């Protein structure tokens, strides 16, 4: 008998002959399994004249295949209590579901069919075009969305793919045709672009066998290039006001272009952001704006380290009379962090939290699947769950403070404010129309 001691998740990873990657992790916590199929087919691949194409495909890809109608697919999913989620991010288009383990084979079959042979029927394209237009109209009435999209437009100006709205605009969505969707699918859905992650009450051998059965004969083509251009460098402070006078509260989105996932200082940045706007109730920002000043129900900072340099975004929802005060408080906290650095107690606490939350992150099948997809997508390695706590613990005060000095510069920040606010004290750029 051989005893193999594995540390951590130790998932299995296999590459099929056509280049598709299959990652499996067996668990027995519930009689269920999470299946996640990610393709390099996110919104950065939208042609400039067809912004919203990847998002549009995510809404119609599962509405018909060569052998199944939309109704057949609906019955197959609903009959098993399964919701198939199709999510599009900047780089990835991911299909994911959780089903009972007894339904694993039929669900994998169905997902394979949807990924490889969607027909995007004309009638479904028209139905979902209407749904997308409605959701764009809803976004236009949502101060939180308008603030964040406004900020991204400032940070990633000049046509950078991260600066575009994933859903596109009503005009671009109206221009998208069935054949646009089909050619986008043809170009981006390839075996070498696929990472299939299966986590749950199904043996690894069974996963690999079934994945090879479903995806093994899919002919290979090259995956699209995922590189993105460098974002423009910020030299001055920028500010955008989106007046929405029918609203009660104003949303502030304040940020910077920050780091790529492969940046060696990623873990120092992670700790810095935790101190700034995450730890407990929104870190230092929460202490100041929510706890001490009672100005906002929510305030936090979050960053998206991606293939390219993603943003660090600070968000708050405040009474319109408090917008200027809240922005001044954000400026002040950023300057203080950049000038004085974090305390060693703060860093210790944030490191304890970040490393200590691993068991919660990896408790559920869906949590493990998301972690493994991220690790695969950024090439972090199969043992990343084991290395991560050490990488966090090795972060030094000097490294964290260097990140704060480098990125937290209010004079180069971009701000977007959406809500019943007319501009306030700071000189505003021309207000954007609604």
């Amino acid at each position, binding site marked *: 008998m051989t005893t193999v001691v594995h540390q951590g998740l130790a998932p299995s990873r296999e590459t099929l002959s056509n280049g598709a990657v299959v990652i499996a992790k*067996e668990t*027995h*916590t*519930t*009689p*269920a399994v999470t299946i996640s199929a990610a393709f390099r087919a996110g919104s950065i691949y939208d042609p400039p004249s067809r912004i919203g194409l990847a998002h549009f495909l995510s809404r119609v890809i599962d509405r018909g295949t060569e052998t199944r109608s*939309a109704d057949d*697919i*609906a019955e197959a999913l*609903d*009959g*098993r*209590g*399964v*919701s198939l*989620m199709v999510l599009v991010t900047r780089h990835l288009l991911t299909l994911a579901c*959780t089903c*009972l383990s007894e339904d694993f084979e039929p669900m994998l079959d169905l997902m394979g069919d949807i990924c490889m042979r969607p027909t995007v029927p004309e009638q479904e394209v028209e*139905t979902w075009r*209407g*749904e997308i*237009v*409605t*959701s764009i*109209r*809803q976004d236009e*009435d*949502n*101060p*939180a969305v308008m603030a964040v999209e406004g900020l991204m437009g400032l940070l990633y100006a000049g046509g950078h793919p991260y600066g575009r709205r994933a859903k596109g605009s009503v005009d671009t969505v109206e221009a998208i045709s069935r054949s646009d969707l089909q050619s986008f699918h043809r170009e981006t859905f390839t075996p070498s672009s696929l990472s299939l992650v299966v986590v749950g009450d199904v043996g690894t051998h069974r996963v690999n066998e079934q994945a090879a059965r479903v995806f093994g004969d899919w002919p290979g083509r090259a995956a699209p290039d995922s590189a993105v251009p460098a974002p423009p460098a910020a030299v001055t402070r920028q500010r955008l006001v989106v007046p929405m*006078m*029918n*609203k*009660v*509260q104003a*949303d502030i989105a304040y940020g910077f272009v920050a780091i790529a996932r492969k940046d060696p200082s990623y873990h120092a940045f992670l700790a810095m952001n935790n101190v700034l706007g995450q*730890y*407990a*109730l929104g870190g230092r920002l929460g*202490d100041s704006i929510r706890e001490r*000043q*009672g*100005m906002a*129900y*929510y305030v936090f900072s979050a960053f998206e380290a991606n293939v390219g340099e993603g943003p660090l975004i600070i968000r708050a*929802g405040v*009474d319109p009379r408090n917008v200027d005060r809240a922005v001044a408080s954000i400026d002040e906290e950023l300057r203080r962090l950049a000038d004085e650095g974090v305390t060693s107690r703060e860093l210790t*606490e944030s490191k*304890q939290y*970040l*490393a*200590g*939350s691993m*068991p*919660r992150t*990896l*408790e*559920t*099948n869906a949590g493990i699947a998301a972690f493994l997809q991220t690790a695969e997508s950024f090439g972090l390695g199969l043992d990343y769950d084991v290395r991560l706590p050490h990488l966090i613990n090795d972060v030094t005060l000097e490294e964290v403070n260097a990140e704060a000095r480098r990125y937290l510069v209010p004079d180069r920040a971009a701000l977007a404010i959406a*809500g019943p606010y007319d501009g306030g004290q700071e000189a505003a750029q021309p207000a954007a129309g609604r």
Partner: protein
Amino acid sequence: MGTASGREANGRTAARVLDNGLRVLVQEVHTAPLASVWCWYKVGSKDEVPGLTGVSHWVEHMNFKGTKNIPRDQVKGIIEQFGGSWNGYTWIDQTTYLETATRDALDRMLFIESERMANCLYDPEDFESERTVIISELQGSENDPDHLLDIEVTAAAFKAHPYGHPTIGWLSDLRRMMRDEVYAFYRRYHVPNNATLVVVGDVEADEVFRAAGVHFRGIEPGTIPPRIYTSEPEQIGERRVTVSREGTTSYLKIAYHAPAVGDADFVPMLIADAVLTGAKGLNLWSSFRTPPPQRSARLYRALVNSRLASSVGGAVLPTQDPFIYQISATAADGVGLTTVEQAAIEQLDHLAREGITEQELAKAKRQLGARLVFENDSVTNIAHQIGFFETVANAEVYRDVPTQIASVSLEQVNRAAAKYLRPTNRTIGWFQPVPPGTGAPVPADKASTSGPMSEAR
């Protein structure tokens, strides 16, 4: 991972009651080195009187702000040090607090909950600062037209029972309420004989009972005044409410008075809802965060597939007293609410009249069976379900749900649908956007509310 006993929707729960009346429920789940601790109080916005709406939610907020033995500056990080997360929420029947962290934080979590029960400070300065935080919470949610409509429809559906006012409270009450009123409400209801402590995770039940005794046995029971709720009189005709505000999109809601969780019609109505909008499951903490399987559901086909609406949803919610079964739809761009309403009502009336089919019954049962597995995938979710049901009914009700679902008959579903989905039992709400500049101005002093829940963060 080994072959340790898995996470079950309806596993074995060990129960003890301390001398002061605190009920302690423990379920051992040894699948991850975690423990989840929830402390539930049988008090929510239905226990609030006019002038004090929102007080239970305000209590919840104040109960994160330091205690006699946890100074204000030591609250931050008290659970985070263990990699843990904490939260709380208030709704119509309940107020609850939780921590989930590594199992070595068990004693710390029990200590926090015992302090929260007996020793919160209600510092006057903190109290005033929290007033504006809560008003900000209210105003943030009012930015959402769908939410505004929800408040109006719920208020119109109840003319007597306190389920009619929003959990976050009316704005004038939030502006006026005083520290001593909120503190008195805390002292009255946050007592061991009105609470249930639930612990689920990688723990031994006996160890939990011992530690709970150490932390809680010194807390005196309270005298809870008798609680009398006016029963909602039977509705005798359709009600309608319209919200006219500037906006881009039209929203429709149709709310029927619905059975309470302990009612024999509750599970039959769960099935009827599964047929209409897809099975959600019963976990308000987790299930409602992912969309239900619903593409073959009747209302989805009638509204979304036909391009009248961009989305439709509904839910039968487990509540102590009869609440509402509410259908919500977002009208597709360019489609009028009359058309959406007509199509929805046609489906609802048809189901009330003709019932569902055997095939639909079998499918709804399968869907619900799967959802009950999915909604119990973590120690946090299992602990929520045990405590939630113990608070609105008793934990056995949840344990029996699978059996009840398996045994419910077509006749039971059809009888319940005919009884509840009556035109005279419904309130219809429209959010009708008006063009910029033509609508009622946003009042400086509006009344308002919260959604189904109001989380601390």
